[in-house]
């Protein structure tokens, strides 16, 4: 079945009705795809469309707080004004619109919402058991056809805990068993019965790929890859096939002669990667392996947005800077396997110091609750080696930089007028172990309030479990 057959009835009706208004959709250079409808001469790229709608919000002025904008700026006694779900203004002595909720920010800190660029919430949820382990399609080494969004369980209690840690958006990735693990999805950290209801509107898809030991460990005795060279051969074979697939479609689109080529869901994803419409999020610990993947990237013309778990990024930070690739790192994880042996606490600070894009990540349902502390540790490690890192700068490691690596920096990741009001109010300096996220706003809506149990979402799973009492999921 060719893509042209995928036009649903309602989509056809809509296009007929809105032909003039939507004419620009049909110009490929302006737009990559339509919502649920196949556009001529394009691979579809929005197959499970977001149904997320911001929750109702009130105009809100947070007044007199220490504001870390994530644009290298700290405003003492600063104000943040939220109107219609957007950041209206950031500054000092702002006026509250009529009827606005005014929050006294004295002794409080305000930051953008935290973005965890590497999470498996929902695909490896709590409780963890065979029935809920949906993160690795470890049936063959290359599975570009799968998508983490089809595995996400929106009732994972981990989402609520992350919200209490100030996390407003996450990239949910397939695991790293496979060379090519499938598409990731970017979610807003909002309670929803469906995954589509959490999908970050307008966020691009990404493709998860993995370097190194994991694919070897999983497939070494099952037909390979068994070696690092087998890993690399696997990526190249997959992209060579995708290039041929793309060429066959381009030929068909150009000539419209004969039947369209057979649709292959996995190759379609890889073709979009080759088109640079889907960036690659590459699990890669070692510096030498990052360099190899940069060569593969140039060979096939795709884009690696970030190296994840980049334990040795500090050894190749100059190369990352040159190729505009972010390093996604833990503050101090190391040594759980050979390729993690050289992880050091100064990694993030050293990558940042070299001028490359440095980003924290959790990869963990406990760690995601305290990314502010992880950044604090990385900042302190950098300061101890003599780098004058301000908190105004370090805040970007968990907000602006992950937004950049996910292609959503135009929408969130900093406190700047016009952006989504994804905002956290902290009761202390967020770079303290004693700090709590007091209030978390997503698109201007107050979705978590530490002092109000009614504003603390709970997963269906935790309802009626005797031990949990009435403590509220997010603050558990």
């Amino acid at each position, binding site marked *: 079945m060719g893509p042209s057959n995928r036009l649903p009835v309602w989509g056809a009706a809509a296009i007929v009705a809105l032909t003039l208004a939507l004419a620009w959709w049909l110009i490929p250079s302006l737009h990559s795809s339509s919502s649920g409808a196949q556009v001529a001469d394009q691979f579809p790229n929005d197959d499970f469309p977001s149904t997320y709608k911001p929750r109702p919000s009130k105009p809100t002025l947070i007044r007199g707080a220490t504001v870390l904008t994530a644009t290298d700026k700290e405003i003492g006694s600063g104000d943040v004004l939220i109107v219609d779900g957007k950041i209206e203004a950031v500054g000092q002595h702002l006026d509250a619109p009529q009827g606005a909720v005014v929050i006294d920010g004295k002794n409080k800190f305000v930051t953008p919402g935290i973005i965890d660029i590497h999470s498996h919430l929902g695909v490896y949820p709590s*409780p963890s058991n065979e029935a809920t382990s949906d993160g690795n399609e470890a049936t063959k080494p290359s599975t570009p056809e799968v998508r983490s969004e089809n595995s996400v369980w929106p009732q994972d209690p981990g989402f609520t805990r992350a919200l209490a840690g100030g996390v407003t958006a996450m990239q949910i990735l397939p695991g790293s068993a496979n060379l090519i693990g499938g598409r990731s999805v970017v979610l807003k950290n909002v309670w929803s019965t469906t995954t589509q209801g959490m999908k970050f509107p307008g966020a691009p898809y990404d493709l998860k790929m993995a370097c190194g030991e994991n694919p070897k460990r999983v497939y070494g005795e099952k037909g390979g890859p068994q070696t690092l060279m087998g890993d690399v051969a696997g990526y190249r074979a997959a992209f060579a096939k995708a290039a041929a697939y793309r060429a066959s479609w381009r030929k068909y689109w150009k000539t419209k002669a004969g039947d369209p080529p057979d649709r292959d869901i996995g190759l379609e994803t890889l073709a979009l990667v080759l088109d640079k419409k889907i960036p690659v999020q590459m699990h890669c610990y070692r510096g030498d392996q990052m360099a190899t993947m940069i060569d593969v990237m140039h060979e096939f013309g795709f884009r690696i947005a970030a190296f994840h778990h980049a334990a040795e990024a500090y050894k190749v930070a100059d190369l990352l800077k040159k190729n505009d690739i972010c390093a996604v790192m833990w503050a*101090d994880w190391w040594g759980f396997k050979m390729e993690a042996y050289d992880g050091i606490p100064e990694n993030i600070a050293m990558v940042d110091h070299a001028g490359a894009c440095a980003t924290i990540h959790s990869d963990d349902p406990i760690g995601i609750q305290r990314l502010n502390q992880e950044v604090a540790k990385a900042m*302190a490690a950098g300061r101890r080696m003599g780098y004058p890192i301000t908190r105004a700068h370090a805040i970007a490691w968990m907000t602006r930089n992950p937004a950049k690596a996910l292609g959503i920096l135009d929408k969130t990741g900093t406190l700047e007028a016009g952006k989504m009001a994804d905002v956290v109010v902290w009761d202390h300096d967020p770079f303290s*172990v004693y700090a709590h996220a007091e209030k978390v706003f997503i698109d201007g809506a107050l979705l978590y309030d530490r002092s109000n149990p009614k504003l603390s979402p709970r997963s269906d*799973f935790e309802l009626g479990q005797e031990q949990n009492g009435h403590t509220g999921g997010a603050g558990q």
Partner: protein
Amino acid sequence: MRTPLFKLLTIGLSLCAFGGAAFAQPQDGQARMATLIKHAHLYTVGSAGTLNDADVLIQSGKIVQVGANLAAPSGAKVMDAHGKPVTPGLMVSWAPLGINELDLVAETNDSAPNQSLDSAAFDVADAINPNSSLIPVARIRGVTRSLTTPVDCGDVFCGTAAVIHLGQGPDLIVKRQAGVLAELEPNGGSGQKNSRPDIWNKFRETLDDAREYWAQRAGYHRPGGSRDQRSNRIDLDALGPVIQGKEPLLVHVERASTIRQVLQYAQTNKLKLVIMGAGEAWEVASELAAAHVPVVLDNDLNLPFSFSDLGATLKNAARLDAAGVTVVFQPQNDDPAHYARTITQIAGNAVANGMKWDHALAAITKNPAEVWGIADTYGTLEPGKDADVVIWDGDPLEVTSAPTAVFIKGVAMPMTSRQTELRDRYRDLAKKNPPHGYR
């Protein structure tokens, strides 16, 4: 093996007075020297409490005196703490520290018994590697002691723990046979370990066997002696101190009902019980307190990872502590050896969630010293104790703080590790010569 003499020497030079002695006689030379730490904000964790602007005198590896305006003996090294916090060295518990270099490199990982039977005799003391790279990584962050344990288990019983110090020298063992670890949680997958009654029966039977074996042990060892027990002789031997109530039985359990069950069993059989993990321990807090049973936990684990810990909460430690239970912290549970340095963060987060600060510090110093039976030599800054002393650059439980000096048994530790050497090798990427491999 290759001894890094050159590095020891350069480290010694940078530390001035004690470095040269360290090179000649790493333990004895330094330990005999006196060190006076002046102007400390001193958390003794002992009966003296917290002392502002106090001094600590260290000599022959021991704390000799604590108080204001102490006089330096002649030849003593004097260090000014400038009002910064000074604490006892920290202790991690329930970590394979010293027996595991890389989790997934099997020949470096001695933390998992490789047998399906009970393995109480699996003794971590037989595997401690004083040259493990994890030890300096942990100690430059203030960790000076570890209750080293296996992490995986045979069938119910996992192995025998040991207390080690994290100083230098060929023998780090402070105390052998510091307790036996058992696993009572079903571990998922298929097989008998899914059923609690099966697990419980094996647990009971092995301990019954151990009692029967020890009652007639002399007879068994006589020529022609015999026994009729399921378990291996060496495992029954290892359980001797546990069934006699001399050393603790460490039981990993999460669910409240199973905690109650093991609590009752331990009381009936006069065992010295320590509960490990225990996401739902707070629900049993008053019973644990009444029975004087301590709890060892990573308090950050607030998710229902299984149906056994649906009650998991960040308030676990605070509630246990408030009820009078002795709390001991484990570092980040998923890899407590590599992440031994997270012990301060775990304690800090417990404070952020309601535990008293002083109690949280005790949970990584004095409490483990008492629970693991080494409180006569370690755990507080009091005269007569081993001089495990840490000078901090800020609040020791704060994530941005770090030690500026660490003493173990009176010896100043080099503030370097494999990680600081990697850092220093790559800190100047722009400089191309000499190549990094020559730095």
